[in-house]
């Protein structure tokens, strides 16, 4: 399984396959519809044990994330058809499916980058400007962790808890979103630094109903390096 990470290591961009549909002379040039594919994990399924079991990682990645991508592609295809026909009511009707499935794809793509095996630096507290910003905004890393864990545990139903950066105000915020709403639905200037999936599928097989334990433990594998990179890009 280690071979996967060495040889087939792709950058975690969104896989793109474009379908060119050229309608030939005299017709309007059709837009290329980009379809999305499941990004690879930069680590093995079992690499986050014992914090998150390999079984959960595999189901989460191969079933749940894949389903969001499949349905997202389907909804986009239907949207394109409806737009071409000028079918406004279908266009509008598809928005919730796009938000849900597209959001699911966006959120999980970020999530995989937010996690990192302990031996690769997962859980190591942030240094540099992000560490300083956390102390300024929240008092201390412990306070931030407590805040996020409280919000995450209190979230009713399914959703995500985020550490976000308000690009304009240069402030860090803790936010929750429901279902698969991406962080940007809470503010157009918000950029996700770290997101924690608190849908039950993210932890149930291992932690059952004890979401607080999952939240307490996940900090051991959170990838502060990625969060720092994003932060430093927006706040140089």
């Amino acid at each position, binding site marked *: 399984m280690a071979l996967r990470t060495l040889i087939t290591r792709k950058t975690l961009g969104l896989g793109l396959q474009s379908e060119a549909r050229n309608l030939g002379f005299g017709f309007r040039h059709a837009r290329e519809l980009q379809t999305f594919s499941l990004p690879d994990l930069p680590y093995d399924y079992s690499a986050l044990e014992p914090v998150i079991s390999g079984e959960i990682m595999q189901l989460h990645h191969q079933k749940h994330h894949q*389903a969001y991508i499949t349905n997202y592609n389907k909804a986009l295809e239907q949207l394109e058809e409806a737009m071409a026909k000028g079918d406004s009511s279908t266009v509008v009707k598809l928005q919730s499916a796009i938000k849900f499935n597209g959001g699911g794809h966006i959120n999980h793509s970020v999530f995989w980058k937010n996690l990192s095996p302990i031996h690769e630096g997962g859980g190591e507290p942030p240094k540099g400007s992000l560490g300083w910003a956390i102390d300024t905004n929240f008092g201390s890393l412990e306070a931030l962790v407590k805040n996020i864990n409280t919000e995450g545990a209190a979230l*009713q*139903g399914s959703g995500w808890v985020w550490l976000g950066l308000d690009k304009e105000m240069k402030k860090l915020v803790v936010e929750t979103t429901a279902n698969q709403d991406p962080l940007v639905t809470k503010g157009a200037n918000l950029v996700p630094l770290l997101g924690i999936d608190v849908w039950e599928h993210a932890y149930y097989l291992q932690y*059952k109903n004890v979401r607080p334990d999952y939240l307490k433990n996940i900090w051991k594998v959170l990838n502060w390096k990625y969060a720092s990179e994003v932060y430093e890009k927006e706040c140089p």
Partner: protein
Amino acid sequence: MASFCSRPFPASSHLLATDFSRPLKISKLLYLQRKGQFHGSQRASKVLAFYGLTTPPYNLDALEPYMSQRTLEIHWGKHHRGYLEGLNKQLENNNSLYGYTMDELVKVTYNNGNPLPEFNNAAQVWTHDFFWESMQPGGGKIPGHGVLLQIEKDFGSFTNFREKFIEAALTLFGSGWIWLALKTKEKRLAVIKTSNGVTPIVWGDIPIISLDMWEHAYYLDYKNDKVKYVNMFLNNLVSWNAATARMARAEAFVNLGEPKIPVA
């Protein structure tokens, strides 16, 4: 109309006691003391109220292999119990919500769409009570005569109802419930989706059957395979007996058609 078997409508247990001198031996008593009468004066009427956890009307292993004992132990013993204890704790601090039946409490805390903090716990206690009673060992198959007729009238066929129910379960976004409910205004059955803990009683409809689509309801047994879960439920678990009893009661509130009054 066809005759329905009569069975008392299942209700949540709701205990209310006023204690004057002899403390009642019930665990988890909560004191709500009236204003101005504190410092434990024994002569003051101490008002005690709490809701109890109803147990499913079957053993926790009775739904195997379609819903495992493990799932029921956690779903009922941890989730359902957790909502109940959370609710009792909230009520301890808010005695304006004291004295309602479970149904009333859900509607009051729903507050016409602007839910109070107690709504989530109250609603989830209610929905889970309803859910356990919507299932039975040896359930599934097709409903009895009267309910079947009504389903055929409102959906065209039982197969069509099944399809609609399954489709709703698979297209629900996030956590929630799927209901077969009697819509009181339209006077017909419909499949309804709700999110989180919302139940059709909050807008006056009458639920007949429910299916929990929160992941905790099926994840241990079916992982992500929702299709299998919903089919197993419809084929083997759903209690059409409970549906019949609920329909019978619903007919007291909703006029579903002209009664056949025999001509003398």
